[in-house]
């Protein structure tokens, strides 16, 4: 098997082998990446800007027609994407946004249920602009979950939210994940977010998976836990960031 495969042995939701992608000819963004994500496995993808993490996610979502490259990708039939912006259609009310493109009887009811699940019951008739940033992103989550995805791709979904809202959203996402159990690939630049949420964290560097870390902290994952801090230090080192910020105290 390829060196950077892992996940559950019971069958993979995602299989990628030898993935190359480049936009212009000078520098490849992904250079021979191998990755396997197990069914129902929560994987977080870290990497510096330009490391190719968004490119990988877009390749999985089938949104990279503008890129050239080779390699094999296997993804499940039902894939949902959550973008950094909620990407709600401003001219459709919240419920219409959630059930966008869904057909068949019960679509509306499923949409209502999904909204209730993200804590937005009663806001079905609101316009997207009437919601806060966090609420808009929750609608986006409802829109992706109502399709019962086997794979959820999330591209820095909380990147545009304030720190407090982000913490609340972490709890919500993990709870939704545990109820629906899709395989998740979460692209983020936030190391703590990756450790709090994921079963396995990958660090992408120069177009390949450079580091892989299984997160085996049971119970509540608390950033003040020394084991949590150890994992964070390890991952930060993999990202090429060591130590904190040096503060020089002026003597008075």
């Amino acid at each position, binding site marked *: 098997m390829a060196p950077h495969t892992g996940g559950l042995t019971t069958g993979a939701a995602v299989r990628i082998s030898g993935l190359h992608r480049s936009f212009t000819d000078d520098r490849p963004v992904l250079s021979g990446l191998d990755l396997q994500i197990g069914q129902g496995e929560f994987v977080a993808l870290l990497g510096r800007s330009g490391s190719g993490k968004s490119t990988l996610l877009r390749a999985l979502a*089938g949104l990279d027609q503008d890129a050239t490259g080779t390699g094999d990708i296997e993804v499940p039939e039902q*894939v949902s994407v959550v973008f950094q912006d909620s990407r709600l*259609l401003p001219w459709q009310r919240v419920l219409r946004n959630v059930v966008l*493109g869904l057909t068949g009887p019960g679509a509306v009811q499923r949409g209502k249920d999904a909204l209730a699940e993200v804590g937005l019951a009663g806001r079905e008739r609101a316009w997207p602009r009437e919601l806060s940033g966090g609420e808009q992103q929750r609608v986006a989550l409802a*829109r992706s979950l109502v399709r019962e995805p086997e794979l959820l791709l999330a591209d820095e979904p909380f990147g545009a939210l304030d720190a407090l809202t982000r913490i609340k959203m972490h709890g919500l996402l993990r709870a939704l994940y545990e109820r629906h159990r899709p395989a998740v690939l979460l692209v983020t630049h936030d190391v703590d977010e990756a450790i709090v949420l994921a079963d396995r964290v990958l660090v992408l560097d120069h177009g390949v998976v450079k580091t892989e870390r299984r997160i085996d902290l049971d119970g509540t994952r608390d950033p003040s836990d020394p084991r949590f801090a150890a994992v964070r230090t390890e991952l930060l080192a993999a990202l090429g960031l060591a130590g904190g910020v040096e503060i020089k105290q002026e003597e008075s």
Partner: protein
Amino acid sequence: MTAVKTEAKAVVPPVDDEELAAGRASRPRGKRRLGPGKPIPLAFLIGPLLLLGVWAWGSAAGWIDDRVLTAPWTVVTTAWERWESGKLGPDLLVSTQRFALGLLFGVLAGLVLALVSGLSRWGEAIVDGPVQIKRSIPNLALLPLLLLWFGIDERMKIITIALGVLIPIYIHTHNGLRSIDGRYAELAETLRLKPAAFIGRVVLPGALPGFLLGMRFAVTSAWLSLVVVEQVNATSGIGYMMLLAGTYGQTDVIIVGLVLYALLGLASDAIVRLIQRRALTWRRTLED
């Protein structure tokens, strides 16, 4: 020492603070400093009423010669007399009918062309050029040719109006279609929207603001073309009535015609604006 200083500050505010407080008091809370401010009720009537006031005042004071510009009250009585004698009604009806039919066909044609050109590259390659060429030819210049082709009957008048209407509808709808955020197309792709759902849920609502803006130009353009066709060759309609009045030197009748055009124009613009407001509730702009 520090404690004492703070206390003193609290009791007697220094000059700087006072000025600051005064500056703040002069700016009422909750009012936006930038942007046009709160909407004024019936704002669109204020300008026309002001104009009417100047006209009435000028006529009453004798500043405006009655033969040059008839007094407003004379215009009203003339209009009433013509209405009573059954001369005005048919003309008004004929004009409104031409306007409505020309607008209808023009909007349909403009909309179809904009969709064809906005949704496919081939469509754009075929449609956009001719429309841009038509755009640079004034309707007046086309008139002789249209007369030769379609004669002087109603068909020719409606076609002329429709040709004028088509342009703003096409330009603004096409622009609306093309300026829909590409990220929504990406979203539609990940949601696997079918082409019909994509057009119905994403494309058309996204282009609606552009289309409605085009409607406002189209309505104005329709009245404009109506005046032209009714004064060039017609035996009925408001324009014909004015043309006749001009021959006999009846200033008051000419003004009746002008006022009618103005009222019809204002009314139709108000209707479009109302539709705009209703259809675009999802949008918050400076206007609200």
